[in-house]
């Protein structure tokens, strides 16, 4: 009989522990795969939301720049028809850097000196922020704070005698509304506003004069027709009138304007009966049902476009200068614009929001929560149903630490596998959905690096959640006396 001597238990090498863990997983492959599936679904959900929002954001950015280019001619037609309201002018000034061409243009038109310009710009920045604040209020609160005033009239109200006091009093009585600036700043702005407003009016009057000067040069042409010559004489007219219209912009604008004129000419053919009939025959429609979409669909093929031009000439339309190549190119562009506009509609929230956007951030948070609860539940189940095994291992002399390591290792392993599967599935689902929604536009805008980062993040989240979720029950199980653990069923 040997004496009993008690010492500290030996420590097990990591390789042995890994083997025990791997054996355990292999034996309970079905159970493990269910856990992996739960983790995968949770991570896929997370990744899907993430990839969709990333792609949407990239597409929104791409669509916005492309559309801005496509709308260049429209924009200039607009700018050359009206000086705009004071409010749009304020926002425009607030959004441009002090030295930008647009700021210089404003300064030129209002004949402002540097000090006046700086003054106007400061007022514009504050004013635009205040207007944003009022635009964000609901009807009742807005009515209470500023009555029925709209746009810069709100600022006028504030600047009127007693306006700020009345406003702060009303603000105090309105629950859950915080003004964007402290009262002193608002008071300072209100004092400044009448002068700034006068400056803005000067700029506006200057702009009005410039517009009149440009329009005097047009004679009987439309603005669009004039802009078609923007890279030539008409561009000089604009620059002489004081507009910031550098030659590159002029060239692009002229090109867009010419296209638009061709589009208008082509679409005007829809008023011509023989041409309508030509298209209606092709699509087996009544002539009255032919619309612009059909027209451009018809013009997508060069032979059809040639036939169209011939028919147009025969019907006495203005077909001069139109070639089949030109028409098919326009038809292609028509389709692209359709897609761009669709993308713009779909991503309207993304474009407005900074960062990921409120909705996406909320969705991400919820999906993270779902992910966390799902994984915790799966791990809790796995550990709880193995209490008996834990108790047995403890009877055999396993240290508490080893049991912890076994379970955390196992859950990490499941987390890695589930996370990878989930991230791949989620990214695939998200991308394919976006591919369907945005088509060709998506292909050039896909943010691959961001997607990979997102996937890595999702995998890490999966592993971390799995490990954390396993630690608590494993810790509890390891700490229990063996028989107490066996009693827990």
């Amino acid at each position, binding site marked *: *009989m*040997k*004496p*009993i*001597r*008690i*010492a*500290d*238990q*030996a*420590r*097990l090498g990591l390789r*042995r522990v890994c083997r*025990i863990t791997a*054996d*355990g997983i*292999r*034996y*309970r492959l079905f159970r493990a795969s269910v856990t992996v599936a739960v983790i995968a679904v949770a991570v896929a959900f997370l990744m899907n939301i993430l990839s969709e929002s990333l792609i949407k954001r990239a597409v929104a950015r791409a669509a916005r720049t492309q559309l801005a280019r496509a709308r260049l001619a429209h924009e200039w037609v607009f700018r050359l028809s009206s000086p705009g309201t004071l409010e749009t002018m304020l926002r425009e000034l607030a959004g441009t850097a002090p030295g930008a061409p647009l700021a210089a243009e404003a300064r030129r038109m209002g004949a402002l000196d540097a000090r006046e310009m700086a003054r106007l710009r400061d007022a514009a920045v504050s004013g635009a922020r205040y207007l944003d604040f009022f635009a964000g209020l609901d009807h009742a609160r807005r009515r209470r704070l500023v009555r029925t005033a709209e746009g810069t009239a709100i600022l006028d109200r504030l600047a009127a005698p007693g306006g700020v006091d009345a406003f702060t009093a009303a603000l105090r009585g309105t629950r859950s509304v915080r003004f964007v600036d402290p009262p002193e700043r608002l008071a300072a702005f209100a004092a400044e506003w009448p002068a700034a407003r006068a400056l803005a009016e000067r700029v506006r009057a200057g702009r009005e004069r410039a517009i009149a000067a440009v329009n005097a040069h047009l004679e009987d042409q439309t603005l669009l027709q004039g802009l078609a010559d923007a890279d030539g004489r008409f561009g000089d007219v604009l620059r002489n009138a004081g507009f910031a219209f550098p030659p590159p912009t002029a060239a692009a604008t002229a090109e867009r304007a010419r296209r638009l004129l061709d589009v208008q000419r082509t679409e005007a053919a829809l008023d011509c009966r023989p041409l309508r009939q030509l298209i209606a025959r092709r699509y087996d429609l009544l002539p009255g049902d032919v619309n612009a979409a059909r027209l451009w669909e018809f013009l997508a093929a060069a032979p059809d476009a040639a036939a169209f031009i011939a028919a147009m000439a025969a019907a006495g339309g203005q077909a001069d200068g139109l070639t089949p190549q030109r028409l098919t190119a326009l038809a292609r562009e028509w389709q692209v614009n359709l897609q761009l506009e669709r993308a713009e509609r779909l991503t309207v929230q993304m474009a407005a929001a900074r960062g990921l956007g409120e909705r996406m951030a909320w969705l991400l948070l919820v999906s993270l929560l779902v992910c966390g609860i799902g994984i915790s539940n799966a791990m809790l189940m796995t550990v709880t149903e193995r209490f*008996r*095994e834990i*108790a*047995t*291992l*403890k*009877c*055999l*002399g*396993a*240290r*508490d630490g*080893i049991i912890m390591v076994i379970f955390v290792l196992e859950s990490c392993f499941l987390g890695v596998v589930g996370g990878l599967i989930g991230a791949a599935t989620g990214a695939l689902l998200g991308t394919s959905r976006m591919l369907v929604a945005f088509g060709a536009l998506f292909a050039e805008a896909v943010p691959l690096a961001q997607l990979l980062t997102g996937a890595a993040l999702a995998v890490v989240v999966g592993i971390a959640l799995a490990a954390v979720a396993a630690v608590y029950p494993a810790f509890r199980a390891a*700490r229990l*006396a*063996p*028989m*107490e653990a066996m009693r827990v069923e």
Partner: protein
Amino acid sequence: MRDTVQAEPQDRGTPDSVASSDHRQSTVNPASSDRPVIIRTVSLKKHYVRNGVVTEALRGVDVAVFGGEFISIMGPSGSGKSTFFNMIGALDRPSSGRVFIDEVDVAQLTAEELAYLRCHRIGYIFQTYNLIQYMTALENVTTPMAFGGLMPDQARERGMHLLELVGLKDRWTHRPIEMSGGQQQRVAIARSLSNRPTILLCDEPTANLDLHTGQEILDILQRLNRSERVTVVCATHDHRTMDMCDRLMWIRDGRLERLARREEVRVKVGSIE
């Protein structure tokens, strides 16, 4: 704590005082008193609380088990037999009272030292075998050796030797699910012996087995007790155990009802007097 451990070999020289104090409670052990006491309990109590209901499982048990003896714990189910077994095996915490294993108070040990005690000094055999399902017979036997710090190849060699001892050498690759109850219990015995324990604790080792297989298991236990001088404590319903044990202990309603040497108990067919 460390002091107690180191002082402990000297303490082993005075088991007589312990045995004599024990003598008052257990009336029948004059023949055994020259042997060292290996397990001793002092007014051991345990109650369970479940849903606010307190169940008294042990109401104060004082017993001494001597080194190298084979002792049977008898008693009807619900008598506290298994609870007592768990207490002396350091598998559960007493509500009050003390358990000394070779004069070391189990309650004083840290988690690490408890793990060492369970690994090296005590072998457990359960009614439900409690083999690790995903390990082969050999892996089940060698796992405690791994915990005990034995090198894998040595562990393998010793594991095969132990499986041979219980007659399962050719089935070392089988998993528990591929073996019969008797075979599983034999693997469990081999496992319990893996780190050469001083004490073998058996909780109804034959309850789930048929008569013949149960006899085989008991034979193995008896052989171990006789040849290796392993102390065997066996909680059982099986009357055959009485035939081979040195002492018998009856527990009823959480109290020690009777403690007797085998010679003093007359065994009749089907009943005991």
